[in-house]
């Protein structure tokens, strides 16, 4: 499934290519010397139960706005060159891509820090919800570790 890599903040139904996303960010600057990525994927077990499907829902516009705030804050606070954040919504199978953060900088240290902060901040501030389907039914996940 193809997807455009033009926008640095995206919420989409389709899968994304990690390689394409990294290549797109490498084109941002010739001064990039370090890239850190975080890829979140669909895990089979949750609280001892086997999950058959995940489904993500978001609050359109607000979720994108919060992700853009995280991007801007990451650049400002950690001194990275740029960041892209892509989150999928809709049904997601076990093992599939869910979320990708790509932090690019002159050196590795700031990209590691920015990437870790960004995924924690995304979970804290971005209105995206996960529904897990198990053998006992469907449940909206409400913990935010």
């Amino acid at each position: 499934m193809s997807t455009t890599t033009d926008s640095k903040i995206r919420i989409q139904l389709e899968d994304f290519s990690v390689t394409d996303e990294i290549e797109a960010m490498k084109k941002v600057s010739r001064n990039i010397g370090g890239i850190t990525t975080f890829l979140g994927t669909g895990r089979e077990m949750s609280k001892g139960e086997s999950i058959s499907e995940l489904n993500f829902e978001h609050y359109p516009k607000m979720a994108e706005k919060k992700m853009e705030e995280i991007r801007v804050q990451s650049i400002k606070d950690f001194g990275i060159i740029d960041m892209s954040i892509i989150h999928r919504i809709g049904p997601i199978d076990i093992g599939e891509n869910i979320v990708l953060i790509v932090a690019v900088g002159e050196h590795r240290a700031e990209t590691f820090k920015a990437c870790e902060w960004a995924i924690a901040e995304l979970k804290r501030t971005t209105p995206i919800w996960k529904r897990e389907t198990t053998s006992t039914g469907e449940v909206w996940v409400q913990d935010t570790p």
Partner: protein
Amino acid sequence: MITIKYFASLRAIAEKDDDSLDIENPITIDQLSDIISKTAPKMGAIIREKKVMISVNQEMASADTIIHDGDEVAFLPPFSGGAK
């Protein structure tokens, strides 16, 4: 008229995805929760007990945030996007 949106687990509690409400004057979130309680007591209780976050026009709000005609109010259960 204000627009009210319910997300994720709250849709089942409110028994709807969204709603609209005519208001004559600006009201607070607390006043809105009183109005919602009359038709959806469980939803009203959840709002009063602060078990959900609330946004007005896609910015986070508090109990004393004033809601004006034309605003979009959303009730947001705890987020769970991203990955552990």
